[in-house]
């Protein structure tokens, strides 16, 4: 069941990467980011974690992996971010909300709509969270200690 989800999310993320004209060399990585994010989300939801919290965690992990990949492959981070976030976008819930709105079931539609807002907020927050961590690492005081051993290891010190 989870394996099937993993494969599906990989191809969904990679498919989106193609739609967004991502460079060929990083297509596989884009799919991987998407699959990891979705897998984590499903795993957390299966273990009765709230959907919003699961989305937040998955988005944060996606963003962290994206940061690493962006540094690694020297590409703008947006490439990996977008592919990773796509599976988490609450398309299904938004659809449900809208469908109930159209059918005049406002009492049913409002909770769905509120859920969509919460989930979108969680995605945004997850992205920002890793950004902040990245900023802290980049601007942190400990960088001066880090630089001493950077790249050349202990030799240079």
């Amino acid at each position, binding site marked *: 069941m989870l394996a*099937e*989800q993993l494969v*599906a*999310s990989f*191809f*969904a993320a*990679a*498919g*989106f990467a*193609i*739609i*967004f*004209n*991502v*460079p*060929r060399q990083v297509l596989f990585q884009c799919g991987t980011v998407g699959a990891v994010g*979705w897998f984590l989300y499903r795993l957390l939801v299966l273990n009765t974690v709230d959907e919003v919290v699961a989305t937040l965690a998955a988005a944060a992990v996606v963003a962290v992996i994206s940061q690493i990949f962006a540094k690694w492959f*020297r*590409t*703008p981070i*947006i*490439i990996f*971010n*977008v592919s990773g*976030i*796509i*599976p988490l*976008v609450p*398309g*299904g819930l*938004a*659809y*449900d909300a*809208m*469908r109930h*709105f*159209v*059918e005049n079931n406002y009492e049913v539609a409002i909770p769905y709509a509120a859920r969509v807002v919460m989930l*979108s907020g969680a*995605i*945004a927050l997850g*992205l*920002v969270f890793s*950004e902040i961590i990245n900023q802290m690492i980049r601007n942190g005081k400990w960088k001066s200690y880090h630089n001493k051993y950077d790249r050349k290891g202990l030799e240079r010190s």
Partner: protein
Amino acid sequence: MERYTVTDVCLLAGKLMLQSGAETYRVEDTMVRIAQAFGMDRAQAHATPTAIMFATDLTEPTNFVRIVSRETDLHKVTQVNGVSRAISAGHLDVTEAAKALETIDNQKDTYPNYIQLLAAAFASGCFTIMFDGSWLDFLPAFFVGALGYGLMSYFHDMLKIRFFAEFLAASFVGLFAYLIIFLNLGQQIDKIVIGAIMPLVPGLLITNAVRDLMAGHLVSGITKGAEAFLTAAAIGAGIAVIFFIF
């Protein structure tokens, strides 16, 4: 031979990035970095989703570029990023940089249209599975998704009004999903529709809007957010119309 200035290079780089769907803060950052690499330390850049302003110094004349069309081509964003890195490292002079950027500008899409259509189709099918649809609905979503994405590009080229193109494409998705259920080729219409409209969902816009807002670019963030909201509303309305009719 044509002469290029640093302003030309910066504006071309910014224009390319903005047209290809980069975040505005990255656009400004890249332009200022290129200018700095050529020794203009006080260069000013201001980018919004529809225009770029650039001056090489505080009191120098300000140049302006209007961005009319925006699409998503992350390959170009990556290439411009690469050129900007090369300039910062001192590997390119002004003319070489301008030539490199012009080559990128004239380049065709990385993937041919049919591959993109196929990708949209696969993504649609996979989304149906991810939303716990049955494998019997994979093929219906595959075809309806391809249809929706293809119609969206077609209407976009024909009508030039993006929101209306999205509206029409979404309503056709709804219509064909109904047809498939009517002909007894699929199981759950909900799962098919959700999968098939995913390629139309403005995922990139939402991410960009959030990143711009967080970087302090409030104008760009809010305009992009509004664009994303309008797109989502257009898709929703398109599907809603079909539900309303049946």
